[in-house]
């Protein structure tokens, strides 16, 4: 049973790391939280002399949770200002002006 929880913790821990690298926001809490719980269970059911690995998993999952929380708090959602898009908008407005004038001349 101990091995089962360790495996679960490793799988969800890896998923948690992937989700943390990707811009998944709060969703990353889900695998990281499961990894933490599985590591905690593995730690509690392990004999005292066999707790080293589950303790390591516990520390890693806590670190992942801290990084996710930090990203959520400190990383602001911003839109990149792109010169190309600004230019596209300006061109679109110029085209529109011409099209509207052409239409007015039709009337």
């Amino acid at each position: 049973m101990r091995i089962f929880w360790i495996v679960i913790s490793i799988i969800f821990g890896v998923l948690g790391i992937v989700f943390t690298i990707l811009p998944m926001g709060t969703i990353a809490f889900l695998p990281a939280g499961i990894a933490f719980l599985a590591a905690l269970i593995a730690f509690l059911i392990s004999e005292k002399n066999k707790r080293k690995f589950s303790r390591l998993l516990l520390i890693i999952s806590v670190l992942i949770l801290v990084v996710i929380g930090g990203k959520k708090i400190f990383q602001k959602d911003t839109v990149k200002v792109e010169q190309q898009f600004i230019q596209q908008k300006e061109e679109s407005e110029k085209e529109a002006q011409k099209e509207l004038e052409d239409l007015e001349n039709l009337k």
Partner: protein
Amino acid sequence: MKKIVTIAVSLLLVFNLPAQIKLNETLVFSGAYAISGMMTNLAQLTMSTDLLKTSKKSYLHLSIVAATFQKWDSYFKIRDLYESYVDPTTFKPTLYKRNVYEGGYTKTETYTFLPDGKSIKSVSQRKKGPVNTHILNVTPNTLDVVTLIYKLRTVDLSRLQPGQSLAFKIIFDEKEYPVWIKFLGKENVSAGNLGKKLCYKLSILAKTDKLKGKDKNIIWLSADNKKIPCMVEFSIPVGVGRLNLLKAEGV
């Protein structure tokens, strides 16, 4: 002198505009999309108004820009531009432009509302495909989607009873659709820098497969004379999402 004339024209236009919509107003929304049942912030949506002058007329330029947050740009970049040029007093559209960039997919559409009032010239192009030009027959008073959102803000909603609907016709993807806006009641909604606002809760119903579910496409408009969109929930074939008002300027 030219500047004074421009300011005077702008002021005149402001006085002619419906009280709900101001020139140079900007509404910024945060767009979230449900991934694994959790709302994840994906994009920013900006609605703005300004004035476009031709040699003969002035138009209210309504624009909506959707752009993914920088963190998403490497995975799925969105830069969508929806624009409409309308008569400032009647809100009748003259020109609608749609320029879509979604993860490499591009589409441009231009609808010119012809002077006869019952036909639209459509020019569209998908990716680098051929440019298609069609004349579409529509019923008078058909609106584009951008105009519909703004038009809704000019409608007196105070007399509506829950369950009552307003009917509109819109043109989207070269097809005309009937759209019903059903009043569901009033609710308090968080509205960014405006704080909490009592809002009209309106359900958008359309005979199209682009919107899913019954009463799952909802817009909350502030229940005051400005009728600012404070929140939008949508259900489309690829999932559900939400827009939350972050900032309202010049309203």
